[in-house]
């Protein structure tokens, strides 16, 4: 295929691409600049060059954090990727029953704020934990706790990435291998693995970076084990040293930059797309294989269920572990935390984020993966898209304050409104949906655009009539991902919410901070409920779309 160079500046695709890139610059690069420029300033605003960095690295206990952070992130990335891979494989390539059930179970951690994963672990493995009580003390606080909590946090993301990757596959390859007499291992090694290679590498980096920047887990179960994210907290919220905070913030960007480089290297020549002639995969019968996956997927689901189970226990117990009576009392939330209004606010904010975020992510990913706009723009787009993953919520929150609250900023009016929360969420959760969208988009046959082009059908038409319907599962996943993450997010919005617009996830943090762990568990269950309802609605929509799709397919077939 011949590539078109960046000369087609007047094409609508390029214009859209340019406009969207500029939007991105405004909501990502400018705020980051306003924060990170502080890394080179002294507290009084004079330029000091690299002095802050020298100070940071010459403080041994601070630089130790870097090693610690890498340690937990690598462990998390490896374990989560393996678990996500196996679980998704079981759900797409075996004949186990209850796939729907297993799929929803895998998503449970996404339904809850990260601070709640920590609470569950404390209920299970803490000094007074249910499992510790049975005589198995894993010494939760510290490295173990962080890694466990990060695995819970990153597992659904790893699972989702593989689940989508495994579903787009060309059954003909397996049929051909079958007729050629290839064994199962060979098929796995030469067809399955290469087809998800891109996802595999991406998944490792996504999990690595999520664990690298997460603050929730280290705060609740990290004990004295210092990581970069707690260092930022110490600098910003302990010593009010924004300049040092900015220094740590820039260090957190390193994985995103590396992962961008690796992404460029691996995707060069890697073509994950499958042709429009692809047939669906027929899964062979194999009792032993299914049995293994029953055990694996079942075991993992059980762990996740126990996690929610202890929340129920916490929410309905008078005072764990000393007064074990049953009570509904913890569900009567005090008005001071925002009451029912904070719930409605959370839902409004999450819906807005989901609608706007999904449109932005998908269109942008489409332009990058499939449009004919300039290479330079595409590469800028890719780089920008990989950055948000590396940003801890706290960095996004602070940089938004510095940028949007500046008097000279014409966008100042959005400060303190729901819009700034929505923008912060879109940026904060951008990278995973982007990977989902671009892997899904890569799978579609290149010929769609080529055919449309030769038939003089405008690109937007082939986009809305072909690409969007084909990618609908991915689009809806993205929508839901944005919705659920916005329901549970704390770290970025904690700096940005205003007195008039409080959200439920913040209320949970306040309860946890006030020591009302039971109330926090109760509120988490309510958020869980909302997210399950959202998930249910999503399933109904998907089901209806599928049915419609099937019937139109049949119509088409009958016409042909």
């Amino acid at each position, binding site marked *: 295929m011949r590539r078109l160079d960046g000369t087609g500046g007047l094409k609508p695709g390029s214009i859209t691409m340019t406009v969207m890139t500029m939007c991105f610059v405004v909501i990502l690069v400018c705020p980051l600049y306003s924060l990170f420029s502080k890394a080179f300033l002294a507290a009084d605003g004079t330029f000091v060059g690299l002095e802050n960095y020298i100070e940071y690295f010459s*403080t*041994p*206990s*601070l630089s*130790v954090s870097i090693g*610690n952070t890498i340690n937990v992130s690598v462990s998390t990335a490896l374990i989560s990727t393996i678990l996500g891979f196996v679980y998704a494989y079981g759900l797409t390539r075996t004949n186990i029953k209850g796939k729907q059930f297993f799929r929803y179970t895998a998503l449970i951690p996404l339904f809850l704020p990260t601070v709640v994963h920590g609470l569950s672990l*404390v209920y299970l493995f*803490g*000094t*007074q934990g249910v499992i510790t009580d049975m005589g198995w003390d894993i010494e939760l*606080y*510290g*490295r173990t706790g962080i890694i466990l909590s990060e695995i819970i946090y990153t597992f659904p993301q790893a699972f989702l990435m593989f689940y989508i990757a495994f579903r787009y596959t060309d059954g003909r390859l397996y049929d051909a291998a079958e007729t050629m007499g290839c064994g199962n291992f060979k098929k796995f090694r030469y067809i399955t693995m290469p087809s998800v290679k891109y996802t595999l590498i991406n998944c490792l980096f996504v999990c690595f970076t999520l664990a690298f920047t997460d603050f929730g887990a280290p*705060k609740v179960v990290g*004990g*004295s*084990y*210092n990581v970069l994210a*707690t260092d930022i*907290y*110490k600098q*910003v*919220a*302990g*010593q*009010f040293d*924004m300049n040092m905070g900015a220094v740590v913030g820039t260090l957190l960007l390193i994985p995103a930059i590396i992962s961008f480089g690796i992404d460029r290297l691996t995707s060069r020549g890697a073509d994950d797309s499958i042709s429009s002639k692809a047939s669906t995969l027929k899964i062979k019968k194999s009792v032993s294989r299914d049995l293994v996956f029953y055990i694996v997927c079942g075991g993992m689901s059980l762990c996740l269920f126990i996690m929610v189970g202890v929340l129920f226990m916490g929410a309905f117990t*008078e*005072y*764990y*572990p*000393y*007064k074990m009576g049953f009570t509904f009392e913890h569900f009567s939330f*005090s*008005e*001071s*935390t925002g009451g029912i209004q904070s719930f409605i606010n959370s839902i409004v904010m999450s819906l807005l984020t989901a609608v706007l975020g999904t449109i932005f992510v998908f269109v942008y990913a489409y332009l990058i993966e499939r449009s004919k706009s300039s290479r330079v723009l595409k590469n800028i787009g890719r780089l920008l898209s990989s950055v948000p993953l590396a940003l801890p919520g706290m960095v996004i929150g*602070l940089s938004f*304050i*510095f940028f949007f*609250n*500046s*008097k000279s900023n014409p966008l*100042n009016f959005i*400060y*303190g409104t729901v819009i700034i929360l929505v923008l912060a969420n879109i940026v904060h959760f951008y990278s995973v949906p982007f990977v989902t969208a671009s892997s899904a988009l890569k799978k579609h046959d290149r010929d769609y655009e080529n055919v449309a082009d030769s038939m003089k059908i405008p690109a937007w038409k082939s986009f809305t009539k072909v690409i969007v319907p084909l990618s609908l599962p991915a689009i809806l996943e993205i929508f839901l991902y944005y919705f659920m993450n916005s329901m549970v997010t704390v770290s970025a919005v*904690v*700096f940005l*919410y*205003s*007195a*008039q617009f409080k959200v439920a996830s913040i209320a949970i943090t*306040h309860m946890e*901070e*006030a*020591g009302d*762990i039971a109330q926090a568990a109760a509120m988490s269950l309510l958020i869980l409920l909302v997210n399950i309802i959202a998930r249910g609605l999503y399933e109904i929509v998907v089901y209806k779309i599928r049915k419609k799709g099937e019937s139109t397919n049949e119509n088409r077939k009958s016409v042909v």
Partner: protein
Amino acid sequence: MKKKLLSVLLSVTVLASALSFTACSDKDKNGNTDEKATEGELTVYTALEDEQVSTYLEDFNKKYPDIKVNVVRESTGIITAKLIAEKDNPQADVVWGTAASSMMVLDDQGGLKGYAPEGVERILPEFKSDKDTPTWVGIDAWETAIVVNTEEAEKLNLPEIKSYDDLLDPAFKGHIVMSNPNSSGTGFLTVSAVLQLMGEDEGWEYLDKLDENIAMYTHSGSKPAKMASSGECAVGISFGYAGLSQKEDGAPVEVIFLEEGSGWDLEANALINKDEINPVAYTFLDWAISDSAMALYKENYPIITTNDVGEYEGYEGDPLEQLIENDFSWAASSRDDILKTWMEKYDAKSEAEE
């Protein structure tokens, strides 16, 4: 570009003159009640607990039904970071019940504006800023307290705690949780109290020994109290209210104040320095140190800053006696050094054990 520069320069001069103007007129404003509005809307940043905010504001709303108060409540660290980050274009009108040590940082950066609320003379001098027109005024004090889980202590057969030295008993090894002074104000006031009580050399020696018994350092000042309450640790070094409120909720804990005295900090109010001061802000700040407000504070924090001494639940004798003579200016000026030394000694050490 030149145009832009010019406009920036112009706005700076306008701003500067506006500031100096308000600064001048402010002096006549003190005590001039005409400037204080009793209706309007007000944005308050606070680090007080959620439930406290609700009860306190009930009283305010009763007195000033036409003032709508919007509250942003966060932990001390987050709210201070937010105030500092927003300093160039502040959103808050007043800060209410937030650590005096935070107020000093903000004051140094020019974030606060002096205002003497009505009745400020009732506040003891050591509990407000020492400027002629005080930039911040304390309302109550919180102090280091040892929170002991009695059930766990019994199980582990732990000795009684009365003094600082009792905490060094090897029986406590691995059972004490304390907050990290680098991320928590409570952690800092505890460390600073030890250094002030024992002198620097002896103080660090003490902390070295204490460190051997510490299971972990947390990032929040109230967390050790919560961990002790839920039995996650036997002993938490935290602050009084954190332990007492858990006890009220049914936790099997005892709150102990060490006999040598406790480190402490104030919850303080301040007026935020911005171009246009919201006239309702004065009304709020006056109310916030009024007798009725103080009476409410006292229910949660026995030590209030007016010289009003009475009976206190959970405390024996005069709780003011419990407070060490905290040298705020020493603590503020040595803060960086203390934190650095602490970090080098214990933050790095706890890593080596992993």
